[in-house]
């Protein structure tokens, strides 16, 4: 391509002031990180978070409210930060470093160990943590607070950016609400009410919430009477009952772009990076292998983990190892048989891969059952498997790569390549859902705005230019493709299952005979 990258349009003076305000806020946090001992921590924390939020608000208002309503993507591929330029890489490195320190070296953030008081950045958050739950902050509290501030501030920005689009506004309001309420405040209040309960973000389901069935977690719930029992029952119902129903009615978007915290951050703070996801066929192939491998890993890991803490004999607990394995295999077999019976046609040649995957999982579970000992499965410690999952998937994939690499891989690389929850919901969405993105007849002009703005790397244009509806497992229903389409071609809809998937070769607008001729296979 001969065109050199043009200069990004200069930002206004007001935007420069807003940036300065935000940077001062960040600077206070940085000072704290380097162990500046602020006299009045509550004041400086308020100042830091307040300035960051204020800066974002002023910036957004000047960027969007000074212009007419409409699509505001001018220059996204010119700006260094949103086009993998030098600023993009700098932000990427800072975020990645932050995640590595957060997950693996929290003491550098100032976490007090062995009863010692917090110092540094974490101590700055002590007043807020004390206020909410009466305990000092942890690295997770700091992370949760910053995460929530990011979703709220950038959510506001996003709402202004799409102020002509009610779908975008409601969806963003929803992720802001769920983050602030369900992920941040409610768990703190639950702790105040009953401090034996494990941390539980009610909206976070297994397998995204991979620790909910950990021994300590289950014990924690079960030792807390009815409320604990209710919570764990809710956890099981969420994934096996509530989520399939909602996904059937609305597609996986009800979760991924309306409720989920990972999705919430991606849609708000990550919005500027959505165009960076790869639309190549090779990326799609990688995605399909990777995300299903993670799903298999998480199913096997969870089963193995629960298995290790279950007893052998009936006297111990009604759910014995043998019964548990039988239930898991039985459940997987019912799902598999059901899909093969009802949806064989739609799967096409993917059915083969599905079958291979299914039998591998069953085989692995059986091997586990017959080789397992008290605390060994596959001749390795059950807890090792869980630890490996937590490290490689829970921390490195979802955090370090998933968010740290926003400015490089786009804002949804975790959701697209790694999230086992997205993979389950996607499977339901592809086969058992009323949701689709409808293509409006023959209006598509193949411009590519839709594909460009798809954070999940779906080549939306590939379908739209053939007049074909978009029914893809990975689609999180963010609706941006529909928003940016200059010809009004795409609409997210829940409608009947019939004719939802409509592969076509010739579009509406043609001679009817020709359409019949070419579309018949």
């Amino acid at each position, binding site marked *: 391509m001969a065109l050199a990258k043009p200069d990004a349009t200069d930002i206004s003076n007001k935007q420069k002031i807003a940036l300065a305000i935000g940077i001062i806020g960040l600077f206070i946090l940085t000072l704290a990180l380097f162990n500046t001992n602020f006299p009045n921590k509550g004041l400086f924390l308020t100042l830091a978070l307040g300035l960051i939020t204020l800066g974002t608000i002023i910036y957004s208002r000047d960027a969007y409210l000074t212009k007419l*309503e409409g699509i505001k993507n001018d220059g996204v591929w010119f700006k260094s930060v949103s086009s993998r330029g030098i600023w993009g890489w700098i932000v990427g490195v800072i975020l990645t470093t932050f995640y590595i320190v957060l997950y693996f070296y929290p003491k550098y953030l100032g976490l007090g160990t062995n009863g010692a008081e917090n110092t540094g950045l974490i101590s700055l958050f002590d007043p807020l943590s004390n206020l909410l739950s009466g305990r000092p902050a942890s690295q997770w509290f700091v992370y949760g607070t910053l995460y929530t501030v990011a979703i709220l501030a950038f959510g506001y920005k996003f709402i202004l950016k799409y102020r002509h689009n009610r779908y975008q506004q409601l969806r963003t309001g929803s992720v802001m609400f769920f983050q602030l309420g369900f992920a941040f405040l409610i768990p703190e209040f639950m702790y105040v009410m009953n401090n034996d309960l494990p941390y539980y973000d009610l909206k976070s389901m297994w397998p995204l919430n991979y620790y909910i069935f950990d021994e300590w977690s289950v014990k924690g719930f079960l030792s807390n009477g009815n409320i604990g029992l209710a919570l764990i029952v809710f956890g099981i119902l969420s994934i096996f009952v509530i989520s399939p129903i909602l996904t059937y009615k609305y597609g996986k978007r009800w979760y991924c772009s309306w409720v989920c915290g990972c999705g919430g951050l991606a849609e708000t703070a990550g919005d500027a990076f959505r165009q960076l996801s790869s639309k190549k066929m090779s990326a799609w192939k990688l995605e399909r292998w990777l995300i299903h491998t993670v799903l298999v890993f998480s199913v096997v890991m969870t089963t193995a983990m629960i298995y290790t803490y279950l007893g052998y004999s009936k006297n111990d607990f009604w759910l014995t190892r043998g019964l548990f394995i039988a239930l898991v295999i039985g459940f997987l077999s019912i799902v598999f048989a059901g899909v093969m019976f009802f949806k064989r046609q739609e799967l096409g040649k993917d059915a083969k891969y599905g079958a291979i995957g299914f039998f591998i999982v069953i085989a692995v579970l059986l091997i586990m059952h017959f080789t397992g000992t008290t605390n060994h499965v596959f001749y390795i410690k059950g807890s090792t498997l869980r630890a490996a999952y937590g490290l490689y998937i829970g921390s490195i994939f979802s955090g370090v790569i998933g968010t740290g690499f926003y400015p490089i891989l786009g804002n949804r690389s975790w959701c697209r390549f790694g999230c086992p929850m997205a993979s389950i919901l996607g499977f339901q969405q592809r086969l058992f859902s009323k949701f689709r993105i409808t293509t409006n007849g023959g209006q598509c*002009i*193949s*411009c*590519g705005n839709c594909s*460009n703005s798809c954070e999940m790397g779906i080549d939306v244009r590939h379908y739209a230019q053939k007049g074909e509806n978009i029914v893809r497992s990975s689609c999180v229903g963010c609706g941006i493709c529909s928003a940016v389409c200059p010809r009004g071609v795409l*609409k997210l809809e829940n409608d009947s299952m019939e004719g939802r998937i409509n592969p076509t070769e010739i579009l509406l607008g043609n001679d009817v005979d020709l359409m019949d001729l070419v579309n018949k296979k």
Partner: protein
Amino acid sequence: MEHIVIIGNGISGVTAARHIRKLSDKKITVVSAETDYFFSRTALMYVYMGHMKFEHTQPYENWFWKKNRIELKKGYVKQVETESKTLHFAAGDTLKYDKLIIATGSKPNKFGWPGQDLEGVMGMYHKQDLESLEKYAPNNSICKRAVIVGGGLIGIELAEMLNSRNIPVTFLVREDSFWNGVLPEGESAMINRHIKNHHIDLRLGMNLKEIKADENGKVKSIIIQETGEEIDCDVVGLTAGVSPNIDFIKDSNIETGRGVKVNRYLETNSPDVYAIGDCAEQHEGINGRRPIEAVWYTGRMMGETLAQTICGNRIQYNPGHWFNSAKFLDIEYQTYGWVFSKPRENERHFHWKHEDDTKCITVCYDKNTNAFLGINTFGIRMRHETFDRWLTEKRDVDYVMNHLPEANFDPEFYSYFEAEILSVYNKQLQIV
């Protein structure tokens, strides 16, 4: 093996190539002087605006062509010799074909204005135009003002492009209201106001007299015909329509008019030579359409049709009900069926405009039979399939107005205006 050569790698040529490949094993070569790979011309504007990079305008990845055994040749055809079935390239080489498809698209119109070939004067059609614009109008310090001549779809897109880089724009429109040869009065007037709201200096009823050069042969200013006013500028965009890009065959024995003359089978007068897309001219317009249709989807449909003919299933090009769409800055426009700027003798228009001045519709119907003839919609998305069906079923206007919600295609949670539209419609009926 039969060798099909297609001149032009736009939507028409590439669609023909893809469908010929689906239907046959013939050797296919696509020739282009413009780019290595097919790209979406309609998306060039978004590259300049920074919404996309040029590679994102390419609907197929680069490996696609080899995998589907579609050969690509970059070169400018300067002569077609139909007797020996040979193409002569500007570089001196030649290429033999068994069947030739001419799909060379359009080129911007120039009406002999003094200074129309100066540096800094450009159309907005080819990729080279985009490169030229990037050179002469990278920002508002190098390009202090741009003047656009011609108030059509490309003109307003060019205005939007320049606006995205804060380059002041003067927009000369020959008509006394924007695109009013096509749009009914109310719609055209609404778009006039929308253009001005974007701080574009819209000059209605103004023509270009001449373009003046500085000492380096670059644009310095333009003179307006009507007022004699001189406007300093660094770029002049000529967007007064397009015409078929067929100069290279004028010397051959292929019959041309404004475009390459074709019959309903898209065959030219010369055996084994076909023409599709913007450059093809029907002897007579089909179903009220123009003989030359420079529209994205008609190019695609001609490609699909011709692929059948070339692969042994000779069929006529037979487009269905007219439809189209565009976007005027922030306002989307769609049309289904026929709505002319002025109702014809037997026609009547119903017009509704929202108070926010960004949404309106015009419905055209037969005042004698009440038959629904077409709709223009601004700021409200409507369903192609529904209107196509209603037109085929020959619904009357009352039916359409009462069932308008079925055709709504706006995103979920948007406000609906159909009830208001219907009540205005019913009131007007009472008055009439």
